[in-house]
């Protein structure tokens, strides 16, 4: 039982990291970036490329090398997110919602099959793997890599929360999500803030990608698709547009999935996750902590 809880929390932290990016972008420009899961995949592949180009690394330095690669990948993925925003989403700022959504689908496909074209359609194994000490805690088998990764994820999320609450850019983000026009009138450089939002959101997803690669060991060009949907579910569960909600939603979803697969079996995992999404949207669309998503009827 405790094993189940721990496993759920661990997977949940990945969902939470990615859901954060979703929520941030949605909060600020009301766009569900369908391609966000593929940014996660992009991060994993950038990390892979960096690690393979670094050649042989002695095992003792592997954790350090991984951290360096993590930071660099975050930077590069963040930049990629900014480029995508500039090329695909900014030109459509005033366009009907439908058009932007479709563009996001197009970006998603381009990322997926672009990586497939560059790195080949086959899955790749990460050159550096996190293996480590294991110990028993309350009946659950907990490993050091898991703890390290969860600490990194938690650290990133706390840093993000601090950034949003305490810096001026964070204040600007919150203000734009409340009322974009008023913010513009108050002299906020909306474009710059949006760019920064995309950067941070994509960097977080990229971090999750590298960590997933290092822990699980396998990356492939379609890994972002289903993770993106799960992250969206997590964001909805927590209340979309709400940072703390995204974190909470991720953990809750991780839990719920763990229990669901335990009862129904592994082949129903995704059905279960989607069912949870649909139930939440029908019965409690505000999510646990968030804003309304239904139309005014």
């Amino acid at each position, binding site marked *: 039982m405790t094993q189940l809880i721990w496993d759920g929390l661990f997977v949940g932290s990945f969902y939470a990291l990615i859901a954060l990016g979703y929520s941030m972008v949605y909060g600020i420009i009301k766009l569900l970036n369908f391609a966000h899961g593929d940014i996660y995949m992009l991060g994993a592949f950038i990390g892979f490329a960096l690690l393979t180009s670094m050649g042989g690394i002695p095992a003792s330095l592997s954790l350090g090398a991984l951290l360096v690669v993590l930071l660099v990948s975050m930077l590069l993925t963040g930049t990629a997110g900014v480029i995508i925003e500039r090329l695909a989403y900014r030109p459509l700022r005033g366009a009907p919602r439908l058009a932007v959504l479709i563009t996001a689908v197009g970006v998603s496909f381009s990322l997926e099959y672009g990586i497939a074209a560059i790195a080949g359609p086959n899955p790749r194994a990460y050159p550096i793997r996190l293996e480590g000490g294991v110990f028993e805690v309350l009946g659950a088998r907990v490993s050091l890599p898991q703890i390290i990764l969860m600490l990194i994820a938690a650290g990133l999320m706390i840093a993000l929360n601090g950034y949003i609450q305490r810096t001026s850019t964070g204040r600007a983000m919150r203000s734009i999500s409340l009322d974009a026009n008023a913010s513009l009138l108050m002299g906020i450089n909306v474009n710059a803030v949006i760019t920064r939002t995309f950067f941070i959101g994509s960097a977080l997803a990229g971090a999750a990608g590298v960590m997933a690669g290092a822990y699980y060991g396998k990356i492939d060009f379609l890994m972002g*698709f289903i993770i993106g949907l799960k992250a969206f579910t997590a964001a909805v569960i927590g209340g979309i547009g709400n940072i703390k909600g995204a974190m909470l939603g991720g953990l809750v979803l991780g839990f719920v999935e763990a229990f669901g697969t335990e009862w129904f079996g592994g082949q129903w995992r995704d059905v279960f996750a989607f069912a949870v999404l649909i139930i939440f949207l029908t019965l409690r669309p505000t999510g646990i902590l968030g804003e309304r998503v239904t139309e005014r009827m």
Partner: protein
Amino acid sequence: MSDNVDTTQAPRKIGPPRTRISRLLESRQLGWIALAVALLAPFVTATPYALNVMTTAAIFVMLASGLNIVVGYCGLLDLGYIAFMAVGAYTAGIVSRSFELPLIFTIPVVLVMTVLAGLIIGVPTLRLRSDYLAIVTLGFGEITRITANNLTITGGPSGIFGIPGLLKIGDFDVQEPAVLYYVTALVVAVFVLASARLGKSRLGRAWRFVREDEDAAEAMGIHTYRVKLLAYIFGAVWGGLGGVLFAAHLSAVSPRSFIFLQSALVLMAVVMGGMGNMRGVVIGALVISLAPELLREMAAHRYLAFGLLLVVVMVFRPQGFWPARGYERDLATVDADDAAVARGERR
């Protein structure tokens, strides 16, 4: 505030067609010409391969016309449209295999099941904002596929095969490739025509109104919820019947044929062809289903090309390659037009 349209920019005025080509393309005769081409094509080449490809393309056109009702007319972004085709194909397959019936007799059951599917998927989702609608419909698409993969009645991962043909009377077997192609082409033509007619009807106008500005439509007395649900149901029926043709064409139905990629391809056909414009959608569907066959060497990169194309089209020409021309006069640039009408210079 309406979130569908940016009212700070004046809409582009799209007038009557001006060039000869435009007039030809907009004329009523185009439909007959296209039908004639479709019917005469087998006389040029009737190899099994060509007939197979043409039948597949015709079925894809049917799907695109169905999705056009949902996305193009009514503006509901459905990313799981292939689920309706799955429901139709599986229902037809299961019923015809279990009762040893030719597929044509399964159509009543298929209609019932697809309408049900349309209701099940539509009722909870149609209250949602468009972004959420998109992802939830995707979720439904995946749920349908995974359920079909897991249940025994749907044949599990192997699916259903050995499906009997559409109809066989004595020696006349509709499953003969050429006959099947003609039947498919005619059925698809009928349904494309029907969906175009739907677009011009009062319901079609209501759909377009809802797409443009849902709040205003509601204020004008349109039951937007009902109207959206109807769009879904029509889309479901089109998809389901496309599924029956699919089952007849392949004689086997398996979950792998209903992955998200397929929904995305139908969406691409509708988007690139020009949402709401049935003719454009038909052409978009033909391009998307035939291009991979004609460009087989580029098979590995076709989805990359589609993805990039989608982004490019949306950024530079969001109304699609062949935009829908309004059937009513554009009332947004009111003053000049009204004045002209008052002066008697224009109808």
